[in-house]
């Protein structure tokens, strides 16, 4: 081990340089600049000019912004859906049914599908006049006068529509993490429980689920962070819906690149950043906790 220390003093930095340059310039640099610009009046047409807390004051009284942030929190409802879908899929594959491996590959296909393609496909399923979902709804509930939901135009259904795309595109990824977690469940414990007379549900409830707790928490946090960062799904699935019916990132995009209000967009970015940071810190805590246990 001591021999490995005998390297030129510059060697580690040469290895690190390209990555640190990119991360430093584009991520750390942008993170510093976003705070700086948030205190300026800055548009696509004029250079930044210091205005103190004006952008933040304007945001605080901007109802559209608060609705967008509120919608970001509603969007967190996608997390339990993702948890249930991905855990169920992982349990099926892990249950020892035939064709588990091909099934695993097949259920990963939505993950590799570009989000814009997923959104366009779901727009067809969600089409208000002719989509499969509304056809099903009018078939089942037509007698009660319900013949369809305005999935693509009416708030908050528009949010749910985008969430369907997020859930569809994401569950295969989290399924893989659950499969990794399931590998750590000791099969001896499962067998012991089964011998003691526990049925499949009992084994799941008392052995599998408790040992999956760290995985569940981790996925809940990661998918919540992703949900707060969502853009593509809303931008494409519910195209043209007013910004106050969308979430934080579409709001920032609209402010910056449709209206050219860079300074205000940066202030909104800082606020969303702070919200996401809470979740990131929880994640950091969990993952360092996980490392200590491992």
């Amino acid at each position, binding site marked *: *081990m001591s*021999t*490995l*220390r005998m390297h030129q003093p510059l*060697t580690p*930095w040469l*290895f*690190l340089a390209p*990555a640190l340059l*990119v991360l430093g310039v*584009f*991520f*750390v*640099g*942008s993170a510093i*600049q976003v705070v700086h*610009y948030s205190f300026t009046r800055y548009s696509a047409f004029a250079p930044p000019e210091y205005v103190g807390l004006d952008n933040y004051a304007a945001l605080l009284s901007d109802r559209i912004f608060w609705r967008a942030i509120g919608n970001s929190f509603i969007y967190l409802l996608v997390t339990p859906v993702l948890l249930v879908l991905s855990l169920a899929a992982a349990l099926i594959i892990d*249950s*020892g*049914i035939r*064709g588990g491996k091909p*099934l695993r590959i097949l259920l*990963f*296909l939505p993950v*590799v*599908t*570009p*989000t814009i*393609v997923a959104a*366009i*496909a779901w727009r*067809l*399923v969600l*089409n208000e006049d*002719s989509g499969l979902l509304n056809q099903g709804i009018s078939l089942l509930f037509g007698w009660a006068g319900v013949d369809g939901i305005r999935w693509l135009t009416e708030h908050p259904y528009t949010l749910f529509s985008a969430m369907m795309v997020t859930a*569809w595109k994401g569950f295969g990824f989290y399924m*893989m*993490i659950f499969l*990794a977690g399931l*590998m750590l469940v000791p*099969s001896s414990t*499962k067998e012991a429980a089964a011998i003691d007379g526990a*049925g*499949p549900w009992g*084994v799941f409830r008392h052995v599998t689920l408790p040992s999956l707790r760290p*995985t569940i928490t981790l996925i809940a946090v990661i998918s919540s962070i992703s949900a707060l960062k969502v853009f*593509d799904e809303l931008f*494409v699935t519910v195209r043209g819906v007013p910004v106050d019916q969308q979430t934080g*990132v579409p709001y*920032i*995009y609209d402010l*910056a690149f449709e209206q050219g209000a860079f300074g205000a967009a*940066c202030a909104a*970015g*800082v606020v969303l950043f702070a919200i996401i940071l809470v979740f*990131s810190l929880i994640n*950091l805590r969990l*993952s360092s906790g*996980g490392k200590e246990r*491992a």
Partner: protein
Amino acid sequence: MNATTRHPGWTMAAYAAAVFFIVLAIGPAIWLVVGAFQSTEADLNTLSGPWTTRNFEEAVSEGGLGIAAINSVIVTLARAGLNVLLAALAAYPLARLSFRGRDAVFILVLATTMIPEQVIVVPMFKIAAGLGLYDALAGAVIPFSVSAFGIFLCRQAFLAIPRDLEEAAWIDGAGSLRIWWSVMLPLAMPSLALLALFSVIGAWSDLLWPLIILQSEHKFTLPVAINRMLDLFATNPRVAYAASVLAIVPIVVFFLAVQRWLKPELFGGAVKG
């Protein structure tokens, strides 16, 4: 080994649920594919003809699909290649060399995982533009040519490699670069492959950043071109369906070719960082 297999009722339920998931995973794509081949007078609900390849022709001739596909391939390969290379380079000293400032660098890298690109797109756009990357394919590549996640993944993989192998190479007179290349990289291959797979998927799908940084139509990547087609062919969305079908084919073929790289056990390390 498994309790479920011993209970016929549960086995049945598992197969039924598997069918549900299969339908869920590939169902939406059916409408897309059918829509892509239908002519304008066909009814999408009935999933019936008349059939045509006109939508594809229009996507190529008027939607710029061909050039967009080439751009997407270039951007994706460059992003994935650089992600693996830069992450593997950076991870080596973090995992194996001892030097002053290592902990500080590691914390800095850790911190960048907490900076979501979506909230910093404005300054990132200004910085990229300042470097002459506006409306250049390189602009779609360079800011995302490495990720903290990739560095972690590689570091985890390097940490799991026994030290004796390096020491043997060291004694044989190999330098750090040589050890990295001929000892570390081959042994970390499963993680590097997983990183490559994720980078390809991410780059092929990316919409927000290319949408911001690319301006000219002939520089568009597939998602940006498809996004434009949704507006351009608003009266005949089947052109965008055709483009969407063509956008999934390469990525699905690629994934099926390398699906053995996707090992669930690697995800355990990936999420634990």
